[in-house]
């Protein structure tokens, strides 16, 4: 028998099996995403060719189409124009079109950024304060309040779409950044409070007490001592909140049209000539994927790091 390893450690065979399962799973989930990324680099014809092309000549046409508005012109008119100034103009001209201006994509994308990060910050900040209070203070009806907070997640948020729509119209919050930030914060807050309360409970109260004796107020102790130790929980909570508000579609369709419209309702409206412009949609979706991916990768080291291991002996 192999005695070189402990009984608690999995054998190398089961480790390999686990790795194999994870790889298979990753490949399956990555197929649609890689197909989407591939589509974004195809031209309009190869995107819809049958049989589908796995090997193709990459083109940036999708990205150019995503960021521009174009109009079709006659060959004579195109010939009368001066030579194209840059590569993307040339690309558009080769399709017998001219660029008439930038598309709305960049504006929608930055709306998504503002609303996504804004509501994530608000959810985590308010959630952390509430979670700390629930964790440390004797709040009257604590358990009932916590249950009430959780119960706001027991129905799909869209179930209250109509009252929210009417409320927002009366309050003038419809199609505003602030309105969307508030809405996503409200939806995310219950999750943030519950997740963070668990992490706050894990942080021994001796830390704040020590800080308070060392000359800090409770609020200062919270920022100086508690928050840094709750980083793991904050990172996890922020990722969940960010994913929700970044991807949210239904409310965005309902409540935003011009000023505060986010990317999810915008991307499907990218219509090309004679059918959907699949490369442009692929390009939009690929770019849409990036921020959440980068955000998660940045916060990943906090997710993996142990919390306060070893500094307090229980």
């Amino acid at each position: 028998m192999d005695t070189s390893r402990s009984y608690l450690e999995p054998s190398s065979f089961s480790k390999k099996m686990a790795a194999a399962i994870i790889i298979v799973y990753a490949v399956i989930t990555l197929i649609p995403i890689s197909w989407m990324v591939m589509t974004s680099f195809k031209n309009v014809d190869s995107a819809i060719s049958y049989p589908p092309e796995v090997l193709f000549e990459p083109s940036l046409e999708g990205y150019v189409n995503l960021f521009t508005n174009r109009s079709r012109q006659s060959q004579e008119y195109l010939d009368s124009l001066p030579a194209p100034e840059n590569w993307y103009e040339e690309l558009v001209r080769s399709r017998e079109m001219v660029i008439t201006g930038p598309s709305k994509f960049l504006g929608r994308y930055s709306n998504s950024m503002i609303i996504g990060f804004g509501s994530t910050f608000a959810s985590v900040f308010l959630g952390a304060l509430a979670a700390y209070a629930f964790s440390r203070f004797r709040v009257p009806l604590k358990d009932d309040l916590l249950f009430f907070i959780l119960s706001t997640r027991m129905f799909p948020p869209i179930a209250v779409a109509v009252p929210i729509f009417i409320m927002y119209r009366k309050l003038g919050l419809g199609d505003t950044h602030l309105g969307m930030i508030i809405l996503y914060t409200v939806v995310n807050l219950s999750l943030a409070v519950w997740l963070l309360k668990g992490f706050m409970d894990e942080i021994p109260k001796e830390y704040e007490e020590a800080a308070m004796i060392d000359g800090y107020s409770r609020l200062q102790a919270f920022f100086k001592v508690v928050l840094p130790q709750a980083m793991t929980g904050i990172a996890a909570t922020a990722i969940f909140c960010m994913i929700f508000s970044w991807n949210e579609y239904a409310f965005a369709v309902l409540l935003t049209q011009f000023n505060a419209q986010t990317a999810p309702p915008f991307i499907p409206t990218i219509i090309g000539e004679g059918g959907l412009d699949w490369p442009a949609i692929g390009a939009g979706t690929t770019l849409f994927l990036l921020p959440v991916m980068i955000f998660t990768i940045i916060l990943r080291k906090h997710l993996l790091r142990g919390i306060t291991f070893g500094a307090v002996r229980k």
Partner: protein
Amino acid sequence: MAKVELKKLFKTYNKKIKALEDINLTIEDGQFFVLLGPSGAGKTTTLRCIAGLEKIDSGDVLFNDENITHDQPASRDVSFVFQQYSLYPHYTVYENLAFPLRSPMRKLPEEEIKNKVEKIAEMLKITSKLKNKATELSGGEMQRVAIGRALVREPNIYLMDEPLSSLDAKLRETLRVELKNIQLNLNATILYVTHDQAEATTLADKIGVLKEGKIVQIGTPEEIYENPNSIYVSQRLGSPKINILPGSLFKLNNTAKIGLRPENIELGNGPYEGKVISTENLGSETVVAINFQDNEILASIQGSYKSSINEKINFDINTNKVLKFDKGDQRIYER
């Protein structure tokens, strides 16, 4: 440093559990005061009330005759060493030591902080660890840093809650000696909580014995040892433990129970005869357990002592040193 007074302190937890009852106590400036008692006696609660971490039901806390009962912990200017290390794990040792000096209450210039931190680090022999993360220390080092964080400033009083209890025996002894030296050098006022009698006797100028939230006796270590006012207090100090025996055993009238320290029993000859139950050689002394009329009596004698089990043994007691107690376990004083 300050004189600290507690006046008629009452504290209950959850409106039911009595934690402190009528605590009256004065810690003089520069005094090393030890609170002694088993767990649950209210030692830690007393510390936390002085620090302001617990709200008291009634009573007053005075620093230099100034009533600070309702002040926030931060403004009381006390320092506290917790039983657990409670170093800030996201800071280095240096930052941990500097933390109280950087607080909004003090805000010392960085240069002065550096001087103070380095001085204290040298005193506690942790200079080489200043750049380490607090989590990268051994248990003994962590506790040194925790003590250092308290000593880095000069507060009204140092409050220490069993600071050495989580350390191994050898380190505990070393730090105990160091702590006493530091206290003498700084002329510091310290309130120290422990259930370890060796710590209490070696460190204390004065000992307060707590029982179920009440102070039952206050005195110097000698007074507590030689002149306890009840059986409970007599059992707090002394190793091997004091013998508590029925008064009738040695024909003492009007005495329900007597307390007899093991060193006040002479073995070899005397009017009393018992049987040896066991002997335990501790090196410098030997503890002999004797069965005397179905009571077990511990006697300790200098050096080693040879005897076999069930051997008959004669002994005498030092009647001047016998402590007499009444039916309520309280001391009977003789005029």
